[in-house]
């Protein structure tokens, strides 16, 4: 096992790549009662066209299969539902699907190994029938309708639709009621067999564990399977530039919701760029910024908008989300502030103060076993070791910040999405 240590944080991670190609990350935490395990596959809603290893032709499947699979994995051939079995053990189990990965997890204080038996058993035993696939369409249909009522979700999806011409990131993770109607058990098995191969998966545990022991426990629960070759993922070609700069939807909300999206190009220096963008966003619209103060005092915004940078190897964008009486004023004044900073440069004191704040934020991510493990999993699929954020923050200087500002924050790549009455 490879030991990766961060002395500042007093944290360790043990990393092992098994023969079948699966990676295991072990994050020991003494003093905690909670234990957390998360098993993920590098397979999310973006994958609907791909070449199965060993095949020549590309396979295309309906949108929403990754999420549908996640729902259906719990059902077992003997009639039990693994979510129930886990809950019955007193552990908190769940699963989720994102654009680039699907994960199965549980958190517990007792019965860890019994629960691990169940988790590793059900993820390795799909059981799909025509009947159980049809039934699931009803439940997922309700979930899709539930999300349709969330203005927060609509404003987000509309932003992506305004930014992307073709890339599947713009589609709803769940698919639509129409697309999921085309899903059947054959499609599910095909996707399962392609993406749930160990070589496409990572397992992360965090809690009071001895690394050697837990690694053995994981290994003995794995079914013999051979690593397959690379899965070729095919995405439609995404042109530069956005589809449209403004999108609006009417919904019953008291105050308009907005998201400002900035379409970006993925960078080689992922971590460094991510840190720089976080610093920039906080300088532009953070609680101590001039612009925030102005918008707040004018009664345009009530609280600090959330500031995020989402990216994989294949796409990248900034999202600024909040509520405002006049979203277009936020949008226009943000553009002005960007132009001002480009012209006048970044204040060094401010830059280092915001960096201190961001450092603190990174440290806080290590408070909770669940948060830590999820972070390592999500970062792994992006090709990142999470400790890099703590180690690289020092090297992010105002000059680099200015460079990123110039490259990324361009008016042409910005969209405004609004949900209002």
């Amino acid at each position, binding site marked *: 096992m490879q030991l990766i240590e961060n002395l*500042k*944080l*007093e944290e360790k991670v043990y990393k092992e790549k098994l023969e079948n190609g699966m990676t295991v990350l072990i994050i020991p935490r003494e*003093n*905690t*009662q*909670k234990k957390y395990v998360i098993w993920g596959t590098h397979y999310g809603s973006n994958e609907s066209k791909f070449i199965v290893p060993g095949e020549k032709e590309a396979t295309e499947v309906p949108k929403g299969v990754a999420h549908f699979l996640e729902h259906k994995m719990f059902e077992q051939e003997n009639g039990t*539902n693994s*979510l*129930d079995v886990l*809950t*019955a*053990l*007193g*552990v*908190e*189990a769940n699963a989720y699907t994102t654009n680039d990965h699907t994960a199965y997890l549980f*958190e*517990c*204080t*007792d019965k860890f190994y019994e629960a691990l038996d169940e988790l590793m058993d059900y993820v390795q035993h799909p059981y799909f029938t025509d009947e159980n696939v049809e*039934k699931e369409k*009803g*439940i997922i249909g*309700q*979930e899709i*309708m*539930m999300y*349709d*009522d*969330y*203005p927060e979700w609509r404003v987000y999806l509309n932003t992506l639709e305004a930014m992307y011409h073709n890339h599947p990131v713009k589609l709803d993770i769940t698919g639509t009621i129409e697309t999921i109607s085309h899903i059947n058990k054959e499609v599910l098995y095909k996707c399962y067999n392609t993406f749930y191969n160990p070589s496409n998966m990572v397992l992360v545990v965090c809690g009071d564990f001895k690394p050697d022991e837990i690694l053995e426990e994981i290994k003995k629960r794995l079914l013999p399977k051979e690593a397959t070759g690379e899965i070729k993922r095919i995405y439609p070609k995404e042109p530069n530039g956005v589809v449209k700069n403004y999108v609006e939807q009417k*919904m*019953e*909300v*008291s*105050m308009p919701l907005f998201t400002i999206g900035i379409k970006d190009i993925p960078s080689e220096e992922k971590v460094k760029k991510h840190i720089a963008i976080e610093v920039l966003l906080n300088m532009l619209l*953070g*609680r*101590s910024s001039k612009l925030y*103060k102005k918008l*707040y*005092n004018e*009664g345009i915004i*009530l609280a600090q908008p959330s500031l995020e940078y989402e990216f994989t190897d294949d796409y990248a964008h900034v999202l600024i989300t909040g*509520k405002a009486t006049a979203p277009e004023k936020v949008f226009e004044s943000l553009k002005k502030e960007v132009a001002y900073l480009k012209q006048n440069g970044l204040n060094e004191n401010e830059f280092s*103060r*915001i960096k*201190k*704040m*961001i*450092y*603190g*934020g990174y*440290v*806080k991510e*290590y*408070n*909770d*076993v669940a948060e830590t493990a999820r972070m390592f999993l999500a970062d792994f699929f992006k090709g990142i070791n999470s400790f890099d954020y703590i180690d690289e923050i020092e090297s992010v200087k105002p000059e680099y910040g200015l460079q990123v500002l110039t490259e990324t924050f361009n008016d042409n790549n910005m969209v405004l999405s609004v949900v209002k009455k």
Partner: protein
Amino acid sequence: MKIKKQEIKSGIKLHTINTNRFKTNLVAVFLAIPITRENVTFNSVLTSVLRRGTKNMPTQEQVSKELENMYGASFDCGIDKTGDNHILKFYLESINDKFLPQTGEKMLKQSIEKLLEIVFNPLVENGKFKEEYVEQEKNNVQRRIEGKIDNKAKYAIERCIEEMYKEQPYGLYRYGYAEDLSKINASNLYKYYQELINTCKIDIFVSGKIDSDISNILEENENIKNLNPREPKYVQTATIRKINTQEKEVSESMDVTQGKLIIGMDINIEDEKQKYKVSVYNALLGGSATSKLFQEVREKASLAYSASSNFIRHKGNIIISCGIEIKNYDKTLGIIRKQLEDMKAGNFTDEELENSKKGIISAIKGIEDEQDTEITYYFGQELSGNEVSTKQYIEAIAQVSRKDVINVANSVSINTIYFLKD
């Protein structure tokens, strides 16, 4: 015990929780008073005004800069109803000294002082709050009150509780009432504030790796010195008696795709022991993925994505909530009623009972792994006047029997059925 309680002055308590589980320290100040129609909106505006600026950090920008310099110490405030009390909550979370890039910074002491400054030393001009801040925050509170409709699921629960507690303190909306905002100005809000901080119940929590004498820091703090001893009036939440009411149905229309069905139920709470029994009943009914509601409404009948129940322990209520297709109202309600009857008849297996208890016990064990949850747990005890360690709590849950649960089931009665539809 790793939690230590000290009375700093009459009515002002310090609770320290010494723990090495976290990378952070968390400081909290809670102000508690009985909630009334007269004070609810004042409390709401006040909480917002206090975060705007202090005597030494007069603008929000300055507050933010100070906190950013403290490695992103995060300040948060909020307002809650706990039983018939309104709780004004203020938090400051900062990195433990051990994990700072430089050594020698006393972050915990600084954090305590900063939070006390925000709560007890606000910016005052000519004997009143700064007018600009008060007017802006009145505006913000108004928006927040109007924003009640934004989250339909929460809105529906809120409305059901309002219907259950008409004309009663617990039926009040915790952010107050838009029509009362015009009565508030910088001068009467400041008067209200002065009275509040000198009469309310004050609890200060400090959680983290504590290596200095916190009571000493408080006793030497000017802001604490200036506070009077008090005999705080607050509502203890130990026993709750319900008056039998007629079951009522309320429905409301709004632009929704999915209907929200909420059922508010009453239970008499005689003593703390009873709360353990109700917790287990609630877990069986709708507290988890193996519960009756989740299994019958979601898994078997495919009627809903969400179906759960929640126990409000400080008021003796269980609230059932489901998101369903609007046309399935009668069908869903029928299935829910059937579950309530099944619980009364004891139609649950011993295994289900044990599983429910295990779920609760596991959650209790996890309390100490979350800093804010642990503080909330001890504050709840402070309010109910009942001190139970997590170990005793676990034992009490383990002892709940099938008979106990059936007894609870037979004492539960539906108060209000609320439906939000299109």
